[in-house]
């Protein structure tokens, strides 16, 4: 409503509608604020629950046994080291596979591909993110694991490498779309300046656009990492779940047990309140701490470099 349309006759109605509007505004604002705060509340509740159920593990089992290399919960051996290393190992491998591919795909989609190709590729990549992990796990078990066994000569196809391949694939959509957004947010003037300076298209991409988008790309990697470390179903189906220490190069071709798979596989049958139950929640706490640190790192990168022109 513009200023000029104000007339004396309209005053009372306007005052009323303004008040109603103000009230409505207030209600909506409160609602939104409550919703926002409830998210924080939920996170705190989850954390409190986790700590309440899992923390007793850390004083009921001596630290030396927790840092042991044997996880045999049926016989009260709760060495969680192989599980932590297993998760980190598979996640790291997955990133080694996914990051180059993801970043290059993002560069292609944003900088190289013609507009019509981008219009097809972007939604397709987002559809990839929607494939349920069980489906990918089944695919990995049925098709990737025989390839790992027969072509790469591993004794079994259910290995850390198979897990990393599936996880890397799962991290890709997140990685690509966030990295693509970061590239998209680099001002056009940067590219123009690069090209005007006589740089080739490749040089502009590699020396100007990608470095300018680096904080966003780092965030993309962190988010992909969060996706990979928290994944459960697909990992449980393809990694073989042997709680062994993934040390040495041959660990690639050996099975591995992740923290998430351990919780998922063993939660069904533990008696509530038992030491094993505490141990699974203890693993949950460790997993929560790791993902929290990853997200924190991602957020700090994002906030620190926001002024630098990475993300809008």
């Amino acid at each position: 409503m513009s200023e000029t349309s104000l007339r004396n006759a309209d005053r009372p109605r306007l005052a009323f509608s303004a008040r109603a509007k103000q009230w409505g505004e207030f209600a909506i604002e409160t609602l939104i604020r409550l919703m926002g705060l409830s998210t924080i509340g939920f996170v705190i509740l989850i954390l409190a629950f986790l700590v309440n159920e899992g923390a007793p593990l850390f004083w009921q089992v001596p630290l030396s046994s927790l840092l042991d290399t044997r996880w045999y919960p049926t016989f009260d051996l709760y060495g969680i080291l192989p599980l932590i290393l297993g998760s980190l190992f598979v996640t790291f491998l997955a990133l080694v596979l996914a990051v180059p591919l993801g970043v290059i795909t993002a560069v292609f989609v944003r900088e190289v591909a013609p507009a019509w190709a981008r219009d097809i590729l972007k939604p397709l990549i987002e559809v990839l993110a929607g494939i349920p992990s069980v489906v990918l796990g089944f695919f990995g078990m049925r098709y990737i694991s025989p390839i790992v066994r027969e072509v790469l000569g591993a004794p079994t196809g259910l290995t850390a490498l198979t897990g990393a391949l599936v996880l890397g694939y799962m991290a890709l959509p997140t990685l690509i779309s966030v990295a693509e957004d970061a590239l998209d947010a680099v001002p056009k003037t940067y590219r123009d300046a690069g090209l005007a300076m006589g740089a080739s298209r490749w040089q502009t991409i590699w020396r100007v656009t990608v470095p300018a988008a680096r904080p966003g790309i780092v965030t993309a990697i962190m988010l992909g990492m969060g996706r990979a470390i928290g994944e459960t179903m697909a990992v449980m189906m393809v990694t073989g779940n042997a709680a062994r220490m993934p040390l040495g190069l041959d660990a690639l071709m050996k099975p591995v047990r992740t923290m998430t798979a351990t919780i998922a596989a063993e939660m069904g049958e533990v008696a509530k309140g038992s030491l094993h139950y505490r141990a699974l929640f203890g693993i949950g706490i460790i997993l929560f701490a790791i993902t929290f640190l990853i997200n924190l790192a991602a957020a700090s990168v994002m906030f620190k470099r926001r002024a630098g022109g990475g993300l809008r």
Partner: protein
Amino acid sequence: MRGLAGPARIWASCLAVLVLAASLCGCGRSGSSGEAQAPPAEAIENKGSDTLVNLALAWAEQYMQIEPNVRISVTGGGSGTGIAALINGTVDLANASRDIKPEEIEAARRNGIEPVEHVVALDAIAVIVHLDNPVERLSLEQISDIYTGKITNWSEIGGEDRPIVLLSRESNSGTYVYFLEEAIRMGQESDLLFATDTLLMPSSEGIIEETSQNRNAIGYDGLGYVTSHVKVVAVARSAEGPFIMPSADTVNDNTYPIARPLYMYTDADPSERVQTYLEWILSEGQVAVDDLGFVPLTEHASEIDERD
């Protein structure tokens, strides 16, 4: 991710909260309606072993068709869970794939319950390999050495020059515990454990699947789960033999070394309907045992012979 800015993100979280709340309500409601359906007078509560749960369900379904005014509710959760419920007096029948422990008997007595064991079926644990694996037979000691990581190549036990890949069920399975005690520890007191390289498969089907595809694999599984895609190995108690194939007969005459009884535990003084149900299980109910791949008790073994 840019698309999911400000308000959209808030709405998305609102939606998530609503879905969560709705699902919680749903759970609560379905739980209470289930209780409301069961008339308390003729209800039998049956809980325990996950190995037995399918069989117990089949029994319950068949029995409820014969006796429509009896309602039997069957839940899994593991042998320990079932026995604990029996001790607490919340179930009439506890299913177990292992013996009740002395301390559990004691706890039950303190609650005025005297647990009585009923063998309801037998279960052979078959040791399986890939169809192309030339190994035909193994002694318990060889199986133990294989699973503890002492033997790591098939050539050491008369097979091809291939690494051995160990497959097992998850550690909370009763079958895992049984196999560890009777095969790996050979029924003796020891602290032998599965080698850390052992692949723990989430399901029995997973073991069959991997064994059927992988020529390096060795696995174990209840006889009921074994399909024609894998090869069953003959097992002997000692290296001299005799090497026995698992079957209803060899389980019943106690020659197959890795077979176990499956139990139902009741109070010493069960109600009449529980007593009748147990009697039915031990007589007509044994047909279902065979259908689900377990081994029926002795007097029915002859029927299986004819079918084979």
